[in-house]
């Protein structure tokens, strides 16, 4: 029976049906649900790896061991895994290996919108791109066959809109696939220069074989229609083309690297005007131009931002988007913000008050950069905060280190914050690092990680002790604070910033969305409230401002009773109900 599945669930199902027995990932929107879902199938080992590089290395080992293996990550995660990936292309696989790259055009939840089809070309991979959940399932299954047949890692490239769209899917039967034999083969798997030179020749032979394959691949198809316009497209963009131009001729590509030259030439020859519609970089278009095929693409379509049917209607058909109903009123924006009770709020409140330079990192707490907290100076990528703070100190001198803090979440610290902390110790930095330990990977939906002591299937496991870890690295000054106790935080910061040498402040309190401990019900005594707005400056939706009365009030539906407003109120106006 057909059932509704998001693209990520369909990928998980396809992997299961293909006989995958090992799956690895580091959580990252929009890829997170893939391995989360695989972990629920019986007979599959799934793990949250500390980061994407490790995830791919474990996947390589599993493939070497003969298992069909899936590894999933968001687009920027592939950058972290790029080192093993490029050479994995040389070694090839034993059991089929599929890397899912979940790209994020439009940056719904990312720091950039890189197009990872580019990796296909540079790392010489077969890249496959589905355009809905059914294809996500079918193409994932087929990817494992192709991976083994051509001895190549396969990149399944998907985008946010596919990952998080539900479509009707007809699941298939799980195949019975015994573990492949493992045979030692150092010439294939030990990439010493002498062996690697030979493997590179094999890679080029494989690419030639794949170029033959893609000409006949059932993953590509032509839908003939009106031949005045021919459109080459792939992925979710295909659906937008079908939506707004059901009558045109379409070459729908399921294999986006290598590209089928003969198929494309024959299609191009049959249509009057040829377009490429691709999200986002002109990967297909540039190859066509290199082949001397006349084509229109990025000269009229953008290479920034997510595509949509109305965008294609406007830019390809010249039909402006209908204006719809208009209110003629300016609507205040609604940026995302830290949840009521979020322990990060206390940290950023204090950092702002102390006017510190803050090297930030990736997670919910990146929202500390937004008003009214606005206490972050930089955010680059996972784990960058500590290196950034160290670099600023090396450029601007020790005094600047007394005014600079690196903030990084617990999961992010494990992901890639450990090595820069080693750098700060080794190279005698005075970096003050705050590890915001909320006991989970919150932004992506509360996944476990090594420091939570639970696995992806919520089994108890050895818990990484962050305090012992940072001490072992050589940080002499390590202390724990409660991020919602302002005084404690300020004292810790004052002491650690004035101290020479690196120090780590562990700000520990569980994420407000998972903290089940009982909390008081709070209210504001309006006689005591002087309207100073200090609680409003916390940027918490649990407190709001009464414009006419010039008072603050607590919204009991949203307040979770964390008490941070009690901490900051100078007039003791915030009270606990029934405490009296």
């Amino acid at each position, binding site marked *: 029976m057909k059932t509704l599945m998001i693209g990520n669930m369909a990928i998980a199902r396809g992997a299961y049906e293909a006989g995958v027995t090992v799956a690895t990932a580091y959580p990252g929107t929009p890829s997170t649900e893939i391995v989360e879902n695989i972990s629920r199938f019986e007979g599959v080992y799934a793990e949250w790896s500390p980061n994407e590089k490790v995830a791919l290395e474990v996947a390589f080992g599993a493939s070497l061991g003969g298992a069909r293996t899936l590894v999933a990550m968001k687009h920027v995660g592939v950058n972290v895994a790029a080192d093993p990936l490029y050479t994995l292309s040389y070694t090839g696989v034993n059991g089929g290996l599929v890397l899912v790259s979940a790209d994020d055009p439009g940056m719904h939840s990312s720091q950039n919108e890189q197009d990872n089809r580019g990796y296909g070309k540079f790392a010489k991979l077969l890249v496959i791109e589905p355009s809905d959940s059914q294809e996500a399932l079918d193409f994932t299954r087929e990817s494992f066959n192709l991976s083994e047949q051509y001895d190549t890692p396969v990149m399944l490239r998907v985008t946010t809109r596919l990952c998080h769209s*539900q479509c009707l899917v007809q699941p298939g039967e799980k195949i019975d696939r015994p573990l492949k034999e493992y045979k030692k083969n150092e010439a294939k798997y030990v990439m010493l220069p002498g062996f690697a030179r030979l493997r590179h020749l094999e890679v080029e032979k494989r690419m030639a074989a794949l170029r033959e394959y893609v000409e006949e691949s059932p993953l590509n198809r032509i839908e003939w229609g009106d031949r005045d316009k021919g459109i080459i497209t792939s992925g979710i963009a295909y659906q937008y083309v079908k939506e707004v131009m059901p009558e045109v001729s379409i070459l729908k590509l399921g294999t986006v690297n290598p590209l089928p030259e003969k198929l494309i030439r024959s299609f191009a020859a049959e249509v009057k005007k040829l377009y490429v519609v691709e999200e986002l970089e002109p990967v297909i278009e540039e190859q066509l131009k290199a082949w001397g095929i006349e084509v229109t693409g990025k000269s009229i379509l953008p290479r920034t931002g997510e595509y949509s049917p109305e965008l294609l209607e406007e830019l390809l058909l010249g039909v402006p988007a209908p204006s719809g109903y208009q209110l003629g009123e300016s609507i205040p924006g609604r940026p995302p913000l830290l949840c009521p009770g979020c322990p990060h709020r206390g940290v950023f409140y204090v950092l702002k008050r102390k006017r510190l330079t803050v090297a930030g990192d990736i997670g919910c707490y990146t929202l500390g950069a937004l008003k009214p907290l606005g206490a972050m100076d930089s955010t680059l990528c996972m784990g960058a905060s500590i290196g950034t703070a160290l670099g600023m100190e090396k450029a601007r001198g020790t005094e600047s280190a007394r005014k600079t803090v690196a903030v990084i979440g617990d999961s992010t610290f494990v992901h890639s914050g450990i090595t820069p902390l080693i750098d700060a110790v080794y190279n005698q930095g005075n970096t003050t690092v705050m590890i915001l330990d909320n006991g989970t990977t919150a932004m992506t939906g509360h996944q476990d990680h090594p420091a939570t002591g639970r696995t992806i299937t919520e089994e108890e496991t050895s818990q990484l002790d962050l305090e012992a870890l940072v001490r072992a690295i050589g940080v002499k000054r390590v202390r724990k604070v409660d991020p919602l106790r302002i005084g404690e935080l300020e004292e810790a910061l004052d002491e650690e910033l004035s101290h020479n040498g690196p120090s780590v402040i562990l700000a520990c309190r569980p994420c407000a969305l998972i903290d089940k401990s009982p909390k008081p019900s709070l209210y504001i005594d309006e006689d005591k409230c002087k309207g100073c707005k200090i609680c409003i400056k916390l940027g918490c*939706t649990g407190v709001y401002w009464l414009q006419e009365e010039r008072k603050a009030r607590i919204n009991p539906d949203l307040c979770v009773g964390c008490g941070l407003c009690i901490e900051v109120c100078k007039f003791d106006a915030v009270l606990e109900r029934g405490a009296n």
Partner: protein
Amino acid sequence: MAADTTNILIVGVGGQGTLLASRVLAQAAVDQGHDVKVSEIHGMAQRGGSVVSQVRYGPKVFSPIIKRGDADVIMAFEKLEAARYLPFLRKGGLMVINTDRIDPLPVMSGEVSYPERLEEKIAQVVPKTIKLDATGIAAGCGTSRAANIVLVGLVGRALGMPLDSLEESVRALVPEKVVAINIKALNAGWNYMDDALISMVRD
């Protein structure tokens, strides 16, 4: 654009349960034999930001996202979000507004003020507007958190979906222990859609 596709845009504030509402409506549409696509938002926007999910159903659906001016129904969980996504409603479409008000950051901090009488202004522009206190109705059913399902009941009826199909879909998608409350909320929304409103919508 196939005119036989029904487009529902569900808008609100991260955490209000727009995702569940879209899944219940989508499942009910599947049960009636439609091709269905749903677009969801996960990740950062869920942290109190403006969120939108989209349900499309009909004989054959391609795009999971709805064009501006093409939504048959906008189901708004919050007034400001109703106003924000208004241009997505097609002329003659139905706007359902939960009269809840959640101040966004720029309002909370006093930078800008929350526009006054928003639901009335929308009703002046959109002939088919239904305003209701879904949050209050849900609270009466046992929890204000079921406001999303109250709206599902109302919109499901407006779109001619059978009640038993919606109920089945609620049972399949909400956690066991809150099924009873949500079924009550669904029915409250269904019953809110009285004959007068039905004839207004079908008009």
